[in-house]
């Protein structure tokens, strides 16, 4: 069997970083990354980007050496992606924060509102209801991260955790401050408004969960060359949509299928939309905004909607690119409109 030689150069300086000889032709990029780590332990595989051209796209972990357009001496270029953090860690931190922070405001912990309000309780039912809904939402997200989602990439750049946590924690504090404020004003249309909003919220939470389950079933647990992060694999179904959090702790395969409606009525939204999980998510927050009649909540919903629309459009585009027979009726996030 003919062996390959692989030399790894720095993409910026062209400095020779590593030379591997006697590499098996069917070796994968993942295996080459592992070998590279041996000589440069500070660059663990998750932070390596190897490519054929210094300015080109990153090679995938599952690419096989002999299938690449290289001679028997392959030259790969290396780019350091910077410190990486696992998706699971990021998600758990992002979601645990709002859960905890909201409760600080709900229980009116000292130094937030005037001292005479310390540890007092609101006299409005809607405030208690809002706390239950908000907490339920984040508990659901935490549980989904641990047990439902299947990820296909292990990591993301470390700086993302600061950016993401600022967003989630910041908005959670901002909303919670007003909802739990002693001077909070309940909704204009009273119990009617709250009941309607609650119904929207619950339906959308169930819907969102149903979609997550349906998407997980699209990705059967399978063989995965785990990139060394304790067998966890985190996924990106297509470019924009990192947010289809998929099972965190179970490895997921990379085969992609078009999602279709199942027996569960909540999944019938797949007939009209590529990313119904985002649709339901926006719906949940709109429900929460109506329930609390709080402008910061509406703003949070708007920002979230903007971001999710960007992701949905990206995912929709990659579905269209990958599948010739993609259902033409579907829009990315809002039926018929967007």
């Amino acid at each position, binding site marked *: 069997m003919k062996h390959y030689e692989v030399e790894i150069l720095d993409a910026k300086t062209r400095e020779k970083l590593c030379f591997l000889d006697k590499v098996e032709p069917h070796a994968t990029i993942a295996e080459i990354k592992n070998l590279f780590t041996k000589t440069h332990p500070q660059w663990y595989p998750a932070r390596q980007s190897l490519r054929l051209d210094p300015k080109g796209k990153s090679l995938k972990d599952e690419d096989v050496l002999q299938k690449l357009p290289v001679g028997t001496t392959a030259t790969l270029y290396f780019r350091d992606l910077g410190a990486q953090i696992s998706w699971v860690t990021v998600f758990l931190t992002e979601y645990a924060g709002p859960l905890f922070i909201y409760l600080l405001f709900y229980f009116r912990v000292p130094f937030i509102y005037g001292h005479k309000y310390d540890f007092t309780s609101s006299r409005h039912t809607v405030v208690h209801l809002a706390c239950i809904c908000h907490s339920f939402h984040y508990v659901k997200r935490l549980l989904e991260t641990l047990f439902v989602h299947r990820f296909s990439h292990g990591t993301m750049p470390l700086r993302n955790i600061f950016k993401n946590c600022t967003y989630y924690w910041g908005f959670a504090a901002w909303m919670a401050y007003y909802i739990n404020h002693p001077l909070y004003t309940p909704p204009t249309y009273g119990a009617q408004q709250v009941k309607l909003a609650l119904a929207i919220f619950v339906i959308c939470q169930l819907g969102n969960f149903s979609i997550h389950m349906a998407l997980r079933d699209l990705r059967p647990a399978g063989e995965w060359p785990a990139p060394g992060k304790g067998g966890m694999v985190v996924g990106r179904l297509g470019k924009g949509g990192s947010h289809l959090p998929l099972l965190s702790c179970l490895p997921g395969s990379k085969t992609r299928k078009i999602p279709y409606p199942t027996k569960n009525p909540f999944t019938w939204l797949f007939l009209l939309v590529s990313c119904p999980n985002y649709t339901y998510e926006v719906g949940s927050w709109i429900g929460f905004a109506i329930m609390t009649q709080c*402008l910061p909540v509406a703003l949070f919903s708007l920002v979230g909607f903007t971001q999710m629309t960007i992701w949905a459009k990206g995912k929709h585009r990659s579905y269209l690119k990958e599948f010739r027979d993609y259902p033409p009726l579907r829009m990315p996030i809002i039926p018929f409109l967007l």
Partner: protein
Amino acid sequence: THPLEESMWLVLAIAMVRFYMEKGTHKGLYKSIQKTLKFFQTFALLEIVHCLIGIVPTSVIVAGVQVSSRIFMVWLITHSIKPIQNEESVVLFLVAWTVTEITRYSFYTFSLLDHLPYFIKWARYNFFIILYPVGVVGELLTIYAALPYVKKTGMFSIRLPNKYNVSFDYYYFLLITMASYIPLFPQLYFHMLRQRRKVLHGEVIVEKDD
């Protein structure tokens, strides 16, 4: 539109100089040029469009920050808070802006004509070294002078309780804005310094990777 904007700022500069020559004081200067200033500065929103469609190489974010801070200073501070209109700091930033814009737009205009005198290029990439800090000092002093009036009148602010369960305090917003100059100004300044090294001294700058 660059020649157009260039002439606008020249008009403004001439108006300012004439006023000073006639009146001998800066008091009332703002009042006399305000309509023109507001019109021109708002016109600068077009700058963002230029960046978006790509005829100017500046990034949308940099241009956006620049234009927003100008609109903020003109409409939300100087126009809205009458008592500070005769402050010296107002003249300070007006002068800084005027000279900067005249230099910048003549640079763009001459570049378009493919006939760029070295002096204009030199001015564009050197004047800012003084003008940026001068402008920032003028702006900050003006905001600082406005603070007591904002606090007293409670302008632009919303208090609880209200039916949308939100509040906004313009006074604290201004404090935060002033504080934001600390991280933002050095970034813009060093960005211009890097541009200067690249353009005037042909240095090859290795950009940070994304």
